[in-house]
């Protein structure tokens, strides 16, 4: 690990006000039952990536950091993009952007998935991926509108599995 000492994120790493908020916040449970299953091995499957790091391309509008409850919109990220072009707009001050600014694969590992596809570990990557800004405290519209729209597009694309990373 080249002297890199991984340190697990802990609730205590959050600023006190955020920690108190997280401790008191009524987190919603993900509603997925009974759950979907891969229909084919990954080596024959098409994958897409979703990041909640607030990524966008320079020609796309940044996420709105001022919306009360959080910006539930998403950005469509073309599969041909160069990860060095990605920008971050993120409200969460708990998200240390230093590493992601050095290498966007840290939060959106597109290059790694390209390498995996070249090696045959997955059949292919979708022609588009999606980015959200994860610091959403009022997720009603995320659940009723933006996430279902992304799901619909991924179904249209016949994507067979999705890898998601928080920030």
């Amino acid at each position, binding site marked *: 690990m080249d002297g890199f000492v991984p340190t697990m*994120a802990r609730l205590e790493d959050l600023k006190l006000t955020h920690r108190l908020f997280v401790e008191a916040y009524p987190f919603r449970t993900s509603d*997925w039952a009974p759950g979907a299953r891969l229909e084919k091995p990954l080596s024959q499957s098409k994958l897409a990536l979703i990041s909640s790091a607030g990524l966008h391309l320079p020609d796309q509008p940044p996420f709105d950091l001022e919306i009360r409850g959080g910006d539930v919109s998403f950005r469509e990220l073309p599969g041909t993009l160069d990860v060095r072009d990605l920008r971050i707009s993120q409200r969460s001050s*708990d998200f240390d952007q230093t590493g*992601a600014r050095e290498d966007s694969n840290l939060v959106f590992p597109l290059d790694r998935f390209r390498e995996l596809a070249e090696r045959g570990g997955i059949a292919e990557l979708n022609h588009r991926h999606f980015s959200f800004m*994860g610091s959403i405290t009022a997720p009603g519209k995320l659940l009723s509108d933006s996430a279902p729209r*992304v799901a*619909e597009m991924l179904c249209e694309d016949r994507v067979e599995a999705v890898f998601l990373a928080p920030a």
Partner: protein
Amino acid sequence: MCHQSVGLIAGVLEKAGIPTVSLSLLLRVTKKVRPPRSLSVPFPFGYPLGKPNDAKLQHQIIRAALNLLESPEELPILRDFEPA
């Protein structure tokens, strides 16, 4: 809040028939949100894939996550990533 957002998006995708796997940096929140498949990684906020420009480590994390997608285990699956 990223973990809630990721877990809720994963749920919507699963309901639409697409299996998902997510990474988690904050086990305590992930246990509340209960996404279908989650790999808990021992890294700080902002570092879900471990370390910038470390392709080997990033691939290890991705492989461990994708293994959950292929697992026939009953859902939800919550697994710890153990760096090699």
